[in-house]
C-alpha cells in the first residue's frame, strides 16, 4: 500500500503499522476507486454502483457476525454452510407465506449458532474445531433438507426482497446498512458489546471480573449464525433460486478477510465494525476490478491473499511489542 518512497525506518514503525491497521483499508479503497475511475469504462455509473453494492451486501452481513466472533478471539467457519442451510429451508415453508419461511430460515441459523456457541462456551472446544464440524455438516444437512436439488424461487414477495428498492437504494443494501448500524450500536453502547470485547482481550480477567463469559460466548455465535442466515436469505432472493450446494461457498474466508483487513485483530479484544464493512467493500472492489478487465477469478483470490498478508503484518507489527 504505502511504497518505499517513505523512509519508514525514520518514522515510528509501530505507529505507521497501527495507522495501517486502522485506516489502511480506507486508503486502499480510495486508491482502487481512483484507479478504476481512470481505467475502467462505465465504473462511475449508478448502475454499476448498485450492482456492486447488491453483490457485497451478503458479505457485509456475514462479516458483521464474524467480527463479533473474532472479537472474542474466536472464529466461525460455519457461516457459508449456514447460508446454504437458510437457502435450503426457505422454499420448504414458502407455502405459508414469505414471513414464516424467513423466520424458519433464520431459526436454522440460530440453531447452528447455538450448537457452535455451546461447544465453545460450555464444552470448551476450540472455536476453529467447533465450527469446523458444522462447516462440513451444515452444508450436508442443507443438501439433505433440499433433497440435493436446486429449486427456482417464484414467490414474488421473496423475489422483491432481492430486486426492489427503497428510496432508490436496493433493499439488500438497506438491510446491510441497518444491520451495520445495529451492530455498531451493540458494540459501542451495550454491556454485551463491551463485555464480548473484554473477553477477547483477556478471558481470565473477564471471568474474575464477574462477566457471564459463557453466556456471552454463546450469544456471539448465535448472532453470527443469525446474520449468516439473513445473508443467505438475501442472496437467495437475488439469485431467484435455492442452491444449497454452491451458495455461500468460501464465504467464511471472505468474511474473515473483511474483518482482519478492517483492523480487527485475530487475537480478539477489539471489534471494528466500520472497518469490517470497508474490508468487505475492498474485497468486492478487487474482484470487480479484475473481472471488468477480464482477469480470472483465481487472480482475484491471489490478490485477496496479498491483502490478508498485509493486514496480518500490520496487526502483528502493532501488537508484537
Amino acid at each position, binding site marked *: 500500500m504505502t511504497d518505499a518512497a517513505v523512509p519508514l525506518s525514520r518514522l515510528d514503525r509501530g505507529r505507521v503499522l497501527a495507522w495501517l491497521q486502522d485506516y489502511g483499508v480506507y486508503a486502499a479503497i480510495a486508491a482502487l476507486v481512483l484507479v478504476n475511475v481512470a481505467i475502467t469504462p462505465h465504473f462511475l455509473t449508478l448502475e454499476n454502483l448498485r450492482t456492486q453494492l447488491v453483490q457485497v451486501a451478503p458479505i457485509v452481513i456475514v462479516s458483521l457476525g464474524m467480527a463479533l466472533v473474532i472479537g472474542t478471539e474466536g472464529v466461525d467457519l460455519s457461516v457459508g454452510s449456514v447460508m446454504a442451510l437458510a437457502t435450503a429451508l426457505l422454499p420448504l415453508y414458502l407455502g405459508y407465506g414469505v414471513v414464516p419461511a424467513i423466520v424458519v430460515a433464520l431459526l436454522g441459523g440460530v440453531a447452528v449458532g447455538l450448537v457452535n456457541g455451546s461447544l465453545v462456551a460450555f464444552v470448551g472446544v476450540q472455536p476453529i474445531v467447533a465450527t469446523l464440524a458444522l462447516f462440513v455438516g451444515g452444508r450436508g444437512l442443507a443438501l439433505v433438507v433440499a433433497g440435493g436439488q436446486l429449486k427456482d424461487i417464484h414467490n414474488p414477495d421473496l423475489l422483491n426482497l432481492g430486486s426492489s428498492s427503497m428510496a432508490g437504494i436496493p433493499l439488500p443494501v438497506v438491510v446491510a446498512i441497518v444491520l451495520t448500524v445495529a451492530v455498531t450500536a451493540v458494540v459501542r453502547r451495550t454491556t454485551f458489546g*463491551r463485555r464480548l*470485547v473484554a473477553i477477547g*482481550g483477556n478471558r481470565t*480477567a473477564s471471568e*474474575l*471480573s464477574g462477566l457471564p463469559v459463557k453466556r456471552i460466548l454463546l450469544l456471539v455465535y448465535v448472532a453470527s449464525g443469525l446474520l449468516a442466515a439473513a445473508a443467505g436469505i438475501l442472496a437467495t432472493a437475488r439469485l431467484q433460486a435455492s442452491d444449497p450446494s454452491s451458495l455461500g461457498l468460501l464465504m467464511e474466508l471472505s468474511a474473515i478477510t473483511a474483518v482482519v483487513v478492517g483492523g480487527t485483530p485475530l487475537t480478539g479484544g477489539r471489534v471494528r465494525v466500520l472497518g469490517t464493512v470497508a474490508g468487505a467493500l475492498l474485497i468486492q472492489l478487487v474482484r470487480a476490478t479484475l473481472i471488468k478487465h477480464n482477469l480470472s477469478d483465481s487472480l482475484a483470490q491471489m490478490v485477496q491473499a496479498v491483502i490478508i498478508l498485509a493486514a496480518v503484518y500490520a496487526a502483528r507489527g502493532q501488537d508484537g511489542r
Partner: protein
Amino acid sequence: MTDDGPLLEVSGIVKRFTGVLALDRVSVRLAPGEVHALVGENGAGKSTLIKVITGVHRPDEGEVRLAGLRAEFASPLEAQRAGIQAVHQEIGLVPSMSVGRNLLLGREPRRRFGLIDVRRMEREAARTLESYGIGVDVRRPLRSLGVGAQQMIALARAVSVDARVVVMDEPTSSLESREVETLFKVIGRLRAQGISVIYVSHRLDELYRICDGVTVLRDGRVVHQGPLAELDRLRLVSLMLGRPVSDVRAQGVTKFSGAHDTADEAPVVEASGLTRRHMLDDVSVAIRPGEVVGLGGLLGAGRTETAKAIAGALPLDGGRVTVAGVPLRRGSAAAIKAGVALLPEDRKAEGIIPTLSVRENIALAALPRLSRGGVVSDARIDRIVETFMKRLRIKASGPHQRVAELSGGNQQKVLIARWLATEPRILLLDEPTRGIDVGAKAEVQALIDELAEAGLGVLLISSDLEELVEGSDRVVVLKDGAVVGELTGSELTEEGVMTTIASHSRAEDDGG
C-alpha cells in the same frame, strides 16, 4: 559409588535473561547419596538453576561437573543420557499406554523383527516397581491411576534409567500423605544406591525429614549453604524471605499508619472451613469492616487460593463464605454483587484487558451498575472514571489511552479503581505492590489504609513481610494450605510471622 568427591558439582553459574541476572555465581555440591534441599521464594532462581543442571538452559558462565568430569549438555536428552533425571510436576508420560509400557518407554525388550516382548516387559516393569515398594498392576493404563501414583511411575521410570542425579521439583504437591511416605521410601532407596537427589519444596516438615544439605537462593544468589540439621527452622524461613531474625526495625519505612480501631463490629466476611484437595485444608478467616487482615505464609501455602475461594473464583470441596451473614452463592459474579472484590496476583494474566482503554478497564466489573437495560451510560462511566483517575492519581495521557501502555504501578491503580467502582464491602488484595515502583508502592499502601479507615474490610496478601506486618491489624498465617497461627497486637512482628511459619505443623504426624 565413586570415591569421596562430589557426584555433582555446579560452580560459579551465571545466567542472564535479556540483561536480567537470574543466577549470580551459584555453586552447589552434591555428595553421592545426598538429598539436597533447594529452597527460595518466587524469582529466587530455583527453576533457572534446575534448568541449567538438566540441560534446558546453558549457563553464561560457570560449569557443571558430573563425577569429576566437565559436563556441557546441549539438550535435556544429553543430560538424561549422562544420568541426570528430572521429575517435574507435570508428568511426561503417555496416559493411554500401560504402566509397564510407560516404565520402559523407548527401551522395551524386543523379540525378533523388532516386536515388543510384552511378557518380558511386564516382568521387568513389575520387578522395578516392586523394588521401590510401589504396588501397581503394570498392565493397567496409566491414566487409570491417580495423579500421585502416576507421579510415582514417572519417578520410577526416571531412576530406573541409570540415574545418578534425580531432580524433584515439588514432588509432593499433588500427593496424599500415604503416597508421600512411599515417595520417601523410594528416596531412601535412592540414597542407599548412591544416587543424589535435588529436592525442591516449600514444605519445611518434609525438608527436615529427608534432606541432608540445603541451598537457599534469593534473587539469584546463594544466601546460605550447609547441612540442614544445623539450620533451625526460623533461620531457614528468615533466609528465604530475606528478613533477618534479629532485625527489629523501627516502623515508618512503609506508608502505613497505625492500627485501625475496629472495635467489636460483626465481621463483614466470614469464610469457614474452606477446603479443596491439595490446596486448602479447613481454612477459616473473618474480616471486620475497617480491618486489614494479613495472610502470611510461604509460596504455595494457600494464600492466593484462600483469596480466590472467598471471591468465588475457586471451586471448593467444602466450606462456606458469608458476606454480612448471607451465604455466598458460587461464582465470581455473585461474589462481586455481594460486595467482594479480588485484586488478583498476576496483573497481566488475570487483571488488565490489554487491548482496552483505561476507561473500559475501570468500568468493566461495574458495568451492571453503569448501565440500564443492557445499554451502558457513557455519562456515568465518564464520571466514575474521572473520579477514580483523580483520586488514585492514575498517570495516563487520558481515559482513552490503552492500559497496556501504562506503567505497572498505574496498571495496578487502574485495577484497584475497577474494584472500587463496584463499591465493594471487602477488598482482597493479592500482592498489591509486587512489581511496581517505589512511589506507586507507597501510594498503594497509603490507599489501603485510607480504604480501611473508610470502613472497607481488607484482606492483604504480601510476600513483603514488612508490608504485611505494618499494613495489617492482624495476620493469619497459612502453611501447606492450613491455618497455623494468628498474630495480633504485640505478637505481630516480622519475627513472629516467621516463627509461626517455621513451627511444626500439626498435620505432620498424620502421614502413614
